[in-house]
């Protein structure tokens, strides 16, 4: 396994008036090459949890082991951990700063001590992975469109050549077309490179047809886990947590009593039923 969280708790501003428990006794194991989804309502602790995966936050209770390194260990090299686990924040385009797209993507590999040639190769490779044309390299990142900015920002993290890619709500604020584009790009990335991917979302449909395994977070704990079909089949429970299952899941459950989570699966099932009839 590549990331392991053992009974992790985290409390914000411990001792102050705004003390807030964000995580309570969370345990989770991520195997190398997996495609994992974490869903939960706003404030359920999912963003706090993923910041533990690259040592940006350290647990106030329990421990997190990333690629064999305990992030609480004073001697642990957090920079290496951060290079191994690339974390793409919510609205990552807000972190763009350099004069050109190329320089912005090259920021991370430069920090990680890549040579000039390695950096150049990494920039081109990661831009290709997110579908960002090289003709944009010399433009200012602030001239790009919303979707392009987001791709550039994701490329900026991929350029470190991480073993794990964590994306916190990568589709937030995009239109349906942009959302579809980014998600299919991520899926392709996982399929082509075999990179471990952790996708954080509150949108249900988004995640259903990508991930192998799903964790549902509620009030700082893991409320449910399983394959998407398993999780979505208990949609009454999801609704209690303020989440919704994909519409197609509800429909198929009510109409046919089967668990599916994508339109594709529903189509196959209905075609099967019709063929038999």
């Amino acid at each position: 396994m590549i990331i392991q969280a053992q009974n992790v708790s985290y409390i914000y501003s411990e001792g102050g008036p705004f003390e807030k428990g964000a995580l309570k006794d969370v345990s989770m194991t991520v195997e190398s090459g997996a495609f994992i989804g974490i869903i939960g309502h706003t404030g359920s602790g999912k963003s706090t949890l993923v910041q533990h995966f690259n040592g940006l936050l350290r647990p106030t209770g329990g421990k997190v082991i990333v690629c064999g390194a305990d992030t609480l260990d004073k001697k642990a090299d957090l920079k290496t951990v951060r290079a191994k686990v690339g974390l793409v924040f919510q609205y990552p385009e807000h972190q763009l700063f350099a004069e050109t797209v190329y320089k912005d993507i090259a920021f991370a590999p430069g920090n990680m001590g890549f040579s000039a040639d390695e950096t150049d190769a990494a920039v081109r490779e990661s831009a290709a992975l997110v579908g960002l044309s090289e003709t944009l390299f010399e433009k200012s990142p602030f001239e790009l469109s919303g979707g392009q900015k987001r791709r550039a920002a994701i490329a900026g993290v991929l350029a470190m050549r991480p073993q794990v890619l964590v994306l916190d709500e990568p589709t937030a604020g995009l239109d349906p077309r942009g959302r579809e584009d980014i998600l299919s790009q991520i899926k392709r990335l996982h399929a082509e490179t075999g990179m471990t991917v952790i996708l954080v979302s509150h949108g249900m449909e988004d995640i259903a047809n990508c991930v192998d395994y799903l964790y549902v977070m509620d009030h700082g704990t893991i409320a449910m886990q399983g394959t998407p079909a398993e999780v979505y089949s208990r949609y009454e429970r999801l609704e209690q947590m303020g989440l919704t299952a994909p519409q197609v899941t509800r429909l198929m459950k009510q109409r046919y009593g089967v668990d599916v989570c994508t339109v594709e699966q529903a189509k196959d099932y209905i075609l099967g039923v019709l063929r038999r009839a």
Partner: protein
Amino acid sequence: MLKDITLGQYFPGNSPLHRLDAMVKIVLTFVFLSAVFTAKTALAYAAVAAFTVVIIMISGVPFKFVVKGLKPLVAFIAFTAVLNLLMTSGTVIWQWGFLRLTYEGAAYAVQMLARIVLLVLGTSLLTYTTSPIALTDGIERLLKPFGKMGLPTHELAMMMSIALRFVPTLLEETDKIMKAQMARGADFQSGNLLKRAKALIPLLVPLFISAIRRAEELATAMDCRCYRGGNHRTRLSEAKVTAADYAAGCVFAGLMTLVIFANKVG
């Protein structure tokens, strides 16, 4: 990490101190300041210190939290103390080169130390017990007489409340961008001064851009709600000076009298 600064924060509560009128509290803070500066003898300082402890207790703000507010000032306080200790002329106790320790210096250093600590503790209670909105409202009412002389009091107060309103937002934003850049291997903590200053570029550029974007959005939102500045604006809740405020005024006047008296006696 940036959220750990407690000085100047608002500590929500419902103590008698929280309920006092903001304008009155600002005036009382000035009375307290004058009391600290008037105090000359140990007895007078003791009186002010005891008073400070009592009002902190009344405010319901935990001592730990108030004392934490001194933390950013520790270096400044220590520097002042050392400077006073070594640079005051008088009866010499110990001398080394141009540095000399005198009785007068020691006494002065202790006095300055007490003065700064009391000043910070006492005045920080104003922001701990008054929400930023109430505070700017209080300032606006205090400045009202100057409005007749052409000072745009409402605009000044509005700018202040907007600035205060955005402090936590910008801190949060800074924290977020810092983390995002650290996730890309940025290092804000090591290296020499030049290297550290350069490391701030990836933080400052996105921060400025987002601040400008927020300002534009806020201006549009205010325009949409037909905001047009000070004249003809009415308030939803009109603040009133109550009996409790007058009573608090008497208490602070009492403190001032006590300090003057203690100066004479001790």
